[in-house]
């Protein structure tokens, strides 16, 4: 039994799922492959990306921030300005079109920060699909506005109380629902994770970020960036922006994981950053770097940003790291919160806490670079959903608002 597309990225990826789901993955792959070469599908996708999502999203030269840091010029790819406020809509829209193509009528999705849940609820509403979103109760508490948005959009939000009650457990529940209702249900997976063909399919639908950004850099800055920075939870926004620069050897690609309270504290979600707990394993259908204990039990993770609070990383990132095509670092909660406030004050942009991790890395690098050098940051989402969290954290640390 062979797949139509390569199911692995070197030793990573694959299809580690119960037999019940294998036929659904085979069907999905076939639908994806035929859609990809169907001009009508592409035209419909492009039309909705322009008229509904609002693409292309702008590229913003962060002039004041660059000036203050006194080094590299920082450019922001504004995925926060896409409809629903994050890059998640690109993938949700692409998969929803596949759902229509497969003749299914119901989608299930997982969500951590709520951005993918909102994107899924949105496309379900747009296309007349039933939508159930699984969300850990811990995340429901910290991302309340997004829960309301999903409900307003007509989705059912099912609280997940098993395990750690975060994204990992929401994925477990979404998969259990999918196994049970696979005949009429599609699992709208939100990141470049899970079993083949998801990592490939999600990259494809997110690659619009990198394609646009490359063109915009050439047009507006007259050159390619020296460095591209993106945050990495599952890694879909990162793979999307990286894909545009994959063949530009001069462009350094940097992924930023959630450093949480610091790698040394054990409270983080840095799969690559913690050589002790971050080892190759199998979770949610894919083989990749996973935070786990000595006995192969998946570890609890921590991040101030729900969207990065996940024990595994997309398999293609593991491959790119092995090949040294991309490099991975981490930003702590404190660094991300600091970057969040900086971008608010200096550029008038409220970034998502996830994206603030990428901004934090830019704040570290820019001063050490020359004024003629360029950093591109993928600003994957906007931070309105995070205001409660940020206010709480600022009060905790005694910062005046």
């Amino acid at each position, binding site marked *: *039994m062979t*797949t139509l597309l390569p*199911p692995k990225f070197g030793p990573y990826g*694959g*299809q*580690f*799922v*119960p*037999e*019940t*789901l*294998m*036929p*659904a993955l085979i069907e999905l792959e076939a639908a994806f492959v035929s859609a990809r070469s169907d001009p009508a599908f592409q035209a419909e996708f492009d039309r909705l990306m322009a008229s509904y999502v609002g693409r292309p999203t702008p590229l913003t030269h962060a002039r004041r921030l660059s000036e203050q840091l006194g080094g590299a010029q920082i450019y922001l790819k504004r995925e926060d300005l896409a409809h629903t406020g994050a890059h998640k809509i690109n993938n949700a829209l692409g998969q929803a079109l596949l759902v229509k193509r497969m003749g299914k009528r119901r989608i299930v999705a997982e969500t951590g920060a709520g951005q993918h849940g909102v994107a899924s609820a949105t496309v379900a509403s747009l296309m007349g699909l039933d939508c159930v979103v699984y969300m850990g109760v811990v995340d429901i508490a910290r991302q309340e506005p997004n829960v309301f948005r999903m409900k307003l959009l007509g989705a059912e939000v099912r609280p997940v109380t*098993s*395990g750690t009650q975060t994204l*990992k*457990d929401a994925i*477990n529940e979404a*998969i*259990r629902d999918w*196994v*049970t*209702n*696979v*005949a009429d249900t599609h699992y709208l997976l939100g990141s470049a994770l899970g079993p083949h063909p998801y990592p490939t399919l999600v990259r494809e639908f997110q690659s619009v970020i990198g394609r646009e950004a490359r063109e915009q850099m050439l047009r507006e800055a007259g050159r390619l960036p020296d460095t591209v920075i993106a945050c990495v939870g599952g890694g879909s926004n990162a793979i999307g922006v990286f894909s545009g620069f994959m063949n530009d050897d001069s462009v350094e690609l940097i992924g930023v994981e959630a450093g949480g309270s610091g790698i040394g504290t054990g409270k983080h979600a840095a799969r690559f950053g913690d050589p002790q707990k971050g*080892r*190759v*394993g*199998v*979770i*949610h*259908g894919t083989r990749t770097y*996973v935070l*786990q204990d*000595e*006995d*192969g*039990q*998946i570890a609890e993770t921590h991040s101030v940003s729900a969207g990065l609070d996940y024990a595994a990383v997309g398999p293609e990132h593991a491959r790119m790291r092995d090949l040294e095509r991309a490099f991975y670092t981490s930003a702590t909660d404190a660094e991300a919160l600091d970057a969040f406030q900086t971008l608010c004050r200096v550029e008038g942009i409220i970034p998502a806490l996830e994206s603030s991790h990428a901004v934090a890395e830019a704040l570290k690098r820019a001063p050490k670079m020359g004024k003629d050098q360029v950093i591109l940051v993928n600003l994957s989402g906007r931070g309105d959903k995070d205001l409660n969290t940020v206010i709480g954290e600022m009060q905790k640390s005694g910062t005046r608002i």
Partner: protein
Amino acid sequence: MNRIGSAFKNSPIFMPYFPLGYPDLDTSINVIEALARNGADLIEVGLSFSDPLADGPVIQRATQVALEKGITVRKSLAAVAELRRRGLELPLILMGYYNPILAYGPEKFVREAWAAGADGFIIPDLPVEESGEFSAALIGADGRPPLPLIQMLAPTTPNERMETIARRARGFIYLVAVTGVTGERSSLSEGLSELIGRVREHTSAPVCVGFGISTPEQAKQVGALADGVIVGSACVKAIGESENPVEAAAGFASGFRAALPGG
């Protein structure tokens, strides 16, 4: 003849599942012994994993308790050895998700499982596409016979795929009776008879049916069609909720055994 082959001489066989370490390690060993001595023909011995995505709430909860009580792969293998020391002769199949096995090392895991007295493996998140690495570890060595990785089939498996999987079948086929996760169901799926017929077209291996079988009456119905009846969640629930788990295990096994032919 190996233990699995011997067990199927009198089919349909009764195959309960129970996780090691639940409600604690000692009790789980006593429970499995009681199941064996009161009518179980083969036991699926559960290894716990933090993210059991093919399992429903009952087994999720039980394996989570087992993990909280400190169960590990190493302790589970030692428990299998203890069951053999107590004189159990029936086949013991280890059922667990792949990541803990991968972390332990597939080759080391198979070697030590064999030495402890296990007869085969069921790994629900290892479809044929991904079983190469583990299958390599199963190849016989140092006097060890090649142990079987039990192949699973589902109602969603198309015929052509079924044929490919069934061709690899060793020991027996685990047929998932319903599209879903483990857990009790009030009624059996309607197309079961046809599904079993479809499987038998592709293999002469014994076909055992699991997922959703909750009562002796349902077991009797399935036993009339299949070579084995697998009971997981109902078994874990009945025993886990009891004040005296070992006694409950004995009663549970004899009740199901009596409902099946030859019982």
